[in-house]
């Protein structure tokens, strides 16, 4: 689910300090004489520690840079499962009087009251990344996210074509209750079903949320299912865990393996042919479009209720195309460390 490595951003304190400086400088500049008042747009991710959110941050900063009259305030809960902290955060932002909020809700239900509160206080909310169980257009302005079902379908179609319509395909599921990955798995299963001679092997096993748990799950699964022709995993950690398991069995590259999201190691594996494909989303685009949509709404322009930021299939053949390469290894440093 979370993708795209930052590369050599070691000792990321530098990144944190740099981004604080960026935010800080924005604040002082807005007080500059003769300048029109800047719009303060709060961007609230699900957590602050994943690469995926760093990409969203970079995208938001890109919008800030392009639009000129905007100040992005990036603040998220430390932990990605802390719904309560995110709710408090949104409420605090409402009371601090930002102009708009771009929110990736941790929970489709738990955040609804806070979002309604913001809208009622005249602060428009744009929802990104994950859905909110509320009415688009009234409870929030717009929903900007990946079409996860389509992402899964792309993987399913590619799998069917690579296997030339016949064989057995194993699905290692990600985690119980993870909405985005369940949609991807749903799309994958749906697309694969259009190939009558492909048998889906779905033992209903879940990888858990870290690479280590995925590795253990994948190793165990492969003891009984090492005769499959294809494998699909629906997020970054399960894809990497499966890759490690395949390597230890010397099956990497032997089985047609399609994963979801990218990081440094997965991109390398794609280049080596150990992965037949990676479905990649566009988190930077999500941050970028989220902020742009909020600003457009504030300026009275009509916005679409649902915006798809797109998913693409990266393969060994197309991975060096500029468009795909940017999704695989986005230039985050340009925005986060300036």
């Amino acid at each position, binding site marked *: 689910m979370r993708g795209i490595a930052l590369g050599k*951003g070691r000792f990321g304190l530098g990144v944190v300090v740099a981004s604080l400086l960026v935010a800080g400088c924005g604040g002082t500049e807005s007080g500059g004489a003769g300048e029109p008042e800047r719009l303060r747009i709060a961007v609230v991710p699900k957590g602050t520690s994943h690469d995926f959110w760093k990409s969203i941050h970079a995208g938001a900063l890109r919008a800030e840079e392009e639009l000129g009259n905007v100040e992005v305030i990036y603040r998220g809960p430390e932990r990605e499962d802390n719904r309560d902290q995110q709710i408090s955060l949104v409420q605090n932002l409402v009371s601090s009087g930002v102009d708009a909020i771009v929110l990736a809700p941790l929970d489709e239900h738990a955040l609804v009251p806070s979002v309604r509160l913001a809208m009622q206080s005249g602060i428009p909310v744009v929802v990104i990344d994950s859905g909110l169980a509320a009415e688009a257009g009234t409870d929030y302005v717009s929903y900007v996210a990946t079409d996860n079902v389509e992402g899964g379908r792309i993987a399913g179609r590619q799998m069917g074509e690579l296997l030339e319509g016949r064989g057995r395909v194993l699905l290692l599921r990600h985690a*119980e209750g993870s909405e985005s990955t369940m949609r991807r798995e749903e799309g994958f299963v749906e697309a694969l079903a259009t190939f009558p001679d492909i048998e889906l092997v779905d033992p209903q096993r879940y990888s858990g949320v870290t690479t280590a748990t995925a590795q253990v799950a994948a190793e*165990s699964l492969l*003891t009984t299912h090492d005769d499959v022709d294809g494998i699909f995993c629906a997020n970054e950690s399960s894809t990497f865990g499966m890759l490690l398991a395949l390597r230890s069995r010397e099956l990497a590259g032997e089985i047609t393996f399609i994963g979801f999201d990218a990081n440094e190691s997965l991109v390398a594996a794609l280049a080596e042919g150990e992965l037949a494909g990676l479905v990649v989303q566009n988190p930077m685009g999500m941050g970028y479009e989220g902020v742009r949509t909020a600003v457009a709404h504030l300026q009275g322009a009509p916005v679409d209720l649902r915006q798809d930021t797109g998913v693409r299939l990266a393969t060994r053949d197309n991975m060096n195309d500029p468009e795909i390469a940017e999704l695989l290894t986005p230039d985050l440093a340009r925005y986060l460390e300036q």
Partner: protein
Amino acid sequence: MSRFAGRPATAWLRTLAPALSLAAAVLVFYAIPPHPPLTLFDLRLVAVHAMIVGTAAIGMTFIIISAGIDLSVGSAIALVSVAAALVLEDGGGVGAAVVVALATGALCGLYNGLLITGLRLPPFIATLGTLGFYRGAAKWISGSIPVTAPTRGLERWVNPIPDPPWLLVAPGVWLMAALGIGFVLVLRYSVLGQHALAIGSNEATARLCGIRVARTKVAIYVVAGLLTGLAGLMQFARLTQGDPTVAIGLELDIIAAVVIGGGSLSGGQGSIVGTLAGAVLMAYLRNRSTVLGWPNFVEEMIVGHIIIVAVAVDRWRAGRSS
């Protein structure tokens, strides 16, 4: 209270109980249709999956025998794995990585020990605090991103299929077994082991007997920290990256292994052999659940009850023998 205090027959039963329950589990699972055979590869996998929990659980047994607990071990494993990865990424050799891993683990243990003895904090609270602290430190030094580093041959220690194959299981598993035997001897014959047992049985009495309780406790946490360091290094070798989010909740598996193996959270009781059997038993159940095609929730419900049954049987036996 000590497992050596009972009658010889009871003591033997105690020692054999984990092995017997493992054997029972093997038979039970074989009896379930479609009777999946237990292949050598399955055994190799189970051994590797029990390795990290088992190694850390040896140290945890030592702590629990002295009536302590360490909730921070999962976070410490993550911190160690990141530290080792950073050393290797900076061009350090395997030796440097091993030293840094063990030192990081030992420092985590030292800090736990000092908090518990110096500030007189209950171990549960002190290590609840360091659980957050070590996790945060791991995220800090890694920049919150998994640190991918060259493994320089370390992965050979943890690969399920050993090289050469006549080793049967991964060298890391043999290392765990050797450490297990070593610590059985430490517990039984060393001053530290005997003092740990004495403190766990009755701290006040131990103090009256002239045992320097604080110093012994710090030593126990440092020794356990060294084992945590090794477990963290194994975790790095398996993932080929130092992941600051790895092993969240692993402390509960580690404590469960000790408890299944006959350790008592009120101290004075615990067995290294039992602990390792507990770790293997949990890994075995997970492996069989997958092989039998059961969904995850079945496995979780079973593993949960293994802990309950193990402790209940132990209580029942203790009640009868007293």
